[in-house]
């Protein structure tokens, strides 16, 4: 059976509300939850990758030079990367700033 993106009426709800498509969470852009965003100061970054490993959203990637960036489409602004970054290369700044 094909699953609708969003059930309009209750009859469209899949049995048990099962999500029958694998990896569909990628379509849920959690970036809208964010109040603060992480900003990297690459002059302090030692390219250890701790931020990459601790990001619960899996939205931090390594760029071509070996520095790290967050995909703001998915980054919820939890600040775990900033907390874990021991050279203090990441700061959380308000969205509107």
């Amino acid at each position, binding site marked *: 059976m094909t699953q609708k993106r969003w059930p309009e009426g*209750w009859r469209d709800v899949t049995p*048990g509300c099962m999500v029958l498509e694998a990896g569909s969470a990628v379509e849920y852009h959690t970036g809208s939850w964010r109040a603060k965003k992480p900003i990297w100061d690459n002059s302090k970054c030692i390219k250890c990758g701790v931020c990459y490993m601790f990001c619960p959203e899996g939205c931090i990637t390594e760029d071509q030079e070996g520095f790290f960036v967050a995909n703001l489409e998915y980054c919820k602004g939890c600040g775990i990367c900033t907390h874990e970054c021991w050279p203090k290369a990441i700061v959380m700044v308000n969205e509107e700033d």
Partner: protein
Amino acid sequence: MGKRIGMEIALAAAEAAALCRPDVIAAYPITPNTHVPEHLSDIVAEGRLDAEYICVESEHSAISACCGASGTGARAFTATSSQGLLFMQEILPIVPSLRLPVVMVIANRAVSGPINVWNDHSDIMYQRDTGWVSLFAANGQETVDMVIQAFKIGEHRDVMLPVNINIDGFQLTHVVEPIFMPDQEEVDRFLPTYKPFAQLHPDTPVSMGSLGAPDIFNEAMCAKNDALVRSKKVILDVWKEWEKQFGRKYEPIESYKTEGAETLIVTMGSMGETAEIAVDELRKDGMPVGLLKIKLWRPFPFEEFRRAVKGAKALAVMDRAVSCGGPGGPVFAELRSALYDEPKKPKTLNFIIGLGGRDVVVEDFIQMAKKTAASKKVKPEDAYEIYGARE
């Protein structure tokens, strides 16, 4: 046709479950259900059944293990009683919400306190609204038959819901009765291999139990309720099929000597058999009394019930649980609600009986039937009594 044997009903329930070839059994012993999982563990240990028997550390784990196993597409079985059932509470509504056909035998027992291990229906009544199909057996034969029927009902693609079979603790579980035990070949013919709608398997990835925010929860509950309401059709079909193959008839509301009856006793569970004798005695004395035995509790068979009480002037409704501060027992509240819009409805009186294993004998049913027949119209809040409570 299987052999007729004398067997303790709890063991017979375990034998019936084993005949259904469950893949996973997870249960924790609690009086009076203990013999069910105990005997199943024997059956697995003896090599008569190839199943994963999980010795869990609690009932919460038992139902969680069964829920997870069912999610992978396994046929799962558990059994419990009273406090054990209440300890499962957190998971009980989730199993039908995930549309997983776990089957559970509930050896009904009073809920504490005071601490009591004997029989009444308070345990299942606390779980009434969880979304399970709920069947009530009146004797050993019905217990065996309903366990086998339960898998077929729950696993049907139009149902996909868990099913519990309620059997009165001690009064049924610990009693030896003559039972026709179907043989394996007969059960295999009746109950095909389980073909799940979806499985938690790497080859067919699905998510079960995801978040339902306010904008979807309403619809999800509507769909869940609808599934349970619609399951009645499948239940009736499965019972017809059972009757065809095994010759034993099942109805949501079973009638006993109701022809021309002005007063009807309504029971659920094993006390129906005691009430039958009371009806026989009263009929001998010329009193027009009949008996209705509820076998299907959820989904409630409104249509069948209204049909069964047509022509009756008074109902003596038996409950085996108290709804503290409420309108009487849960069965009573249900039946009154079912009759509210009927143009001609019988008087209804509620007797809450047999709490925590208190014996109810034939004479009690005779007295309750007589009291009901002679009763005048009463206010709803005066319509129930906890029968036999000493002044």
